[in-house]
């Protein structure tokens, strides 16, 4: 009898679950972590969607795209959240993504007219330093001429690392190899990911670390520590825009559309600044959190057109390897 009761319970439970539609979103790991935007976003969306939102974490942005390519059309994902403008062309080429239903008043430094992907946050790459650093460089050439030490991430394993590669390429074009050659004696080391690099910087292994202009906001807001700043570079700063897209083969097309619409509303956007430590793609009605006004405002936003990202990336990586393995 016990078993029968158990079996009935199980059956009841599965039908109960089946009645609630499930929206599966693939994203990067730091989004779903307890300190990322995931938990708050899930709660806010489930309040309005009458559904069960399930996040699946997969490494970082590039790993996310890799997983999608492995799964192909069989993917369980309804929405993929966490690709960036360096990956959107390759993602679009998989043919897995559907047209986006969203139009919004974006607060992006560039016009947005990608038909597939919806941006949810953005930021500028920058070198972060201690505010009291003397002779902080104003551009890459000054940095290369200085004896300041920097720690960066490997473009082959890290999103910011790739961002720096594109930054130098976008700013200097054919001169990029010379810039890297000049920087080679400033680079203390190259790490696998952002966490290692930032950890080394905080341990005092380097004067500057490659991160985002928004990183000092974490120290200021969460730790009331104003000792970190980002260095404004006159060449301009490379822009990273993070996006989400709907999978064309989804079995929950309405829910997926609803989520993408929800993504550009205040309920989602107001979570971003102090969890993902990026700028929201649509500025919430309440504005940015106090402290964000202290961040540097780059005069120029650099970005290679997403369609060219792949070719430029391959050339830039070859130059980078060449310059740093001399």
């Amino acid at each position: 009898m016990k078993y029968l009761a158990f079996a009935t319970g199980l059956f009841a439970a599965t039908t109960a679950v089946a009645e609630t539609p499930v929206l599966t979103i693939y994203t990067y790991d730091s989004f779903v972590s307890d300190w990322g935007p995931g938990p708050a976003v899930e709660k806010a969306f489930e309040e309005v969607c009458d559904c069960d939102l399930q996040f699946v974490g997969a490494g970082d942005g590039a790993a996310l795209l890799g997983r999608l390519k492995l799964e192909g059309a069989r993917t369980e994902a309804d929405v993929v959240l966490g690709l960036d403008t360096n990956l959107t062309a390759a993602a679009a080429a998989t043919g897995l993504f559907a047209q986006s239903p969203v139009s919004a008043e974006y607060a992006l430094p560039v016009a947005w007219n990608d038909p597939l992907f919806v941006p949810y946050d953005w930021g500028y790459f920058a070198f972060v330093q201690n505010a009291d650093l003397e002779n902080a460089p104003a551009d890459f050439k000054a940095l290369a001429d200085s004896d300041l030490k920097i720690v960066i991430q490997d473009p082959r394993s890290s999103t910011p690392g790739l961002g720096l590669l594109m930054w130098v390429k976008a700013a200097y074009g054919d001169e990029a190899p010379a810039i890297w050659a000049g920087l080679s004696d400033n680079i203390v080391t190259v790490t696998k990911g952002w966490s290692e690099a930032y950890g080394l910087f905080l341990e005092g292994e380097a004067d500057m670390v490659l991160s985002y202009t928004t990183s000092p906001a974490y120290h200021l807001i969460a730790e009331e520590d104003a000792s970190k700043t980002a260095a404004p570079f006159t060449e301009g700063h490379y822009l990273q825009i993070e996006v989400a897209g709907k999978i064309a083969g989804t079995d929950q097309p309405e829910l997926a559309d609803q989520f993408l619409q929800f993504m550009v509303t205040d309920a989602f956007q107001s979570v971003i600044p102090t969890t993902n430590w990026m700028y929201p793609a649509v500025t919430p009605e309440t504005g940015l959190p106090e402290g964000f006004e202290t961040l540097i405002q780059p005069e120029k936003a650099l970005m290679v057109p997403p369609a060219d990202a792949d070719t430029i990336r391959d050339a830039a990586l070859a130059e980078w390897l060449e310059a740093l393995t001399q």
Partner: protein
Amino acid sequence: MIRSGPGYAAAGFVLLFIFGPLIMVFVKAGGGVLPGPGDWAAIRFSITQATLSALFSTVLAIPVARALARRQFRGRGVLITLLGAPFILPVIVAVLGLLAVFGRSGALNSLLIWIGVPPVQIYGLHGVVLAHVFFNLPLATRILLQAWQQIPAERFRLAASLNLSAGQIARQLEFPMLRAAAPGAFVVIFALCLSSFTVALTLGGGPKATTVELAIYQAFRFDFDLGRAAMLAVIQTLLVGIVALFALKYSHGEGFGAGLDRVVTRWDAQSTLLRLNDALILIFAALFLLLPLTMVVINGIAGWSRMPAQVYSALWVSVTIALLSTALTLALALPLALTALRRGWIEVIGLFGIVSSPLVLGTGLFLIVHPFADPARLAFAVTGLVNALMALPFTLRVLIPSLRASEQNYGRLADSLGLTGWTRLRLLLLPRARRALGFAAGLTAAMSMGDLGVITLFADPSHATLPLQMYRLMGAFRMEAAAGAGLVLLMSSLGLFWILDKGGRGDVDA
């Protein structure tokens, strides 16, 4: 005798689990792609750093193991356990600890600047080797120490009654023992270092320190070239296979015969000079291994109060996986080790686990599993199994010599008594392998605790392991809290190791 069937079954399982996914990746890629020039540079660098790391770790471990083998002092057991700690730390925790001592603004350079000597630069090939020695010196020491302890006390008594000097004992007893044991330690460490990625890149100071695993990353993430990634994984596996076969060929020893398991007394090593020598060696080794650990502890205590509750739930996930891995490893290692007594080459199969690229292995497993099941649901099982395979080489390296000694010394007696199969295992082999089993179980559990669960394709976001949770804290700027979690990890890994290892050393003073 013990039948070989279970050993072959275990070997088949390991091969299937490692090469099945690899073949799957080749199938998906539609064939292999030959590595490019950059990949060959990565292969060369991997071999260079792994050879140097394994060589230094093994050679430096000899005096340390000898000092530990011939000295009895208070706290010796604790010291042996603590010296093992670097081996089980998650890479990033250990790297930060090392840099706190040897880094640009580390303790060593502060001292050098204070006494007016120019600071030293840790980043480069020497830094990679230093870090790998830091990780693996403890392992080499334990493997050699175990070999030392297999020389029966009676041999040293005989040597003493013949009035042999320490140097003569080294020639007659210790050198033959080392010839049998050191190549095995070398191979295991070579295999470990060959697939190093984070340590090699971070301490290598840049893309010059590109290893095969990083080349695999590039092929996979950057070019989505699965054929090249899988090809590199095959090359890595072949390299270890070749080195292992060579080492095994040269590592046969004669054995020292049986003893009465008395405590070893070393009359030869009582001179003041030798005492001083051993004391200095132990002090240097302890400083080298324990200073970075002390930094981990100091930072951990500072971050302790900022640790969120999630750290503790992650701790239980990790402990569960660690115990699962330990059980699995022993279940695979014991039959493999028993078969290896007659078929030495079978140990090489055990080594493949450590060199199979986690990225390629994970991708292949994912391709196998995905059509049938949600990979996240298998996160526990897959993580446990992969950790078990990773630990297999050490477990075998520790178990085989111990079982071989029992068979050499008591095998004929057991034969004449008609002890076979399970009875022989229960009455002779297992009791005599107790120390090795305890140590191997402790190592596996501790290693599994520290593993990041590299296979992100099987990640289950709601059941993060402790290292993953620590990494997430770092990724969310919470470096102090992450340091606290690192300390929890260090203590729990050491605790597990100590309990299991102690279980095996119950008879140490009998």
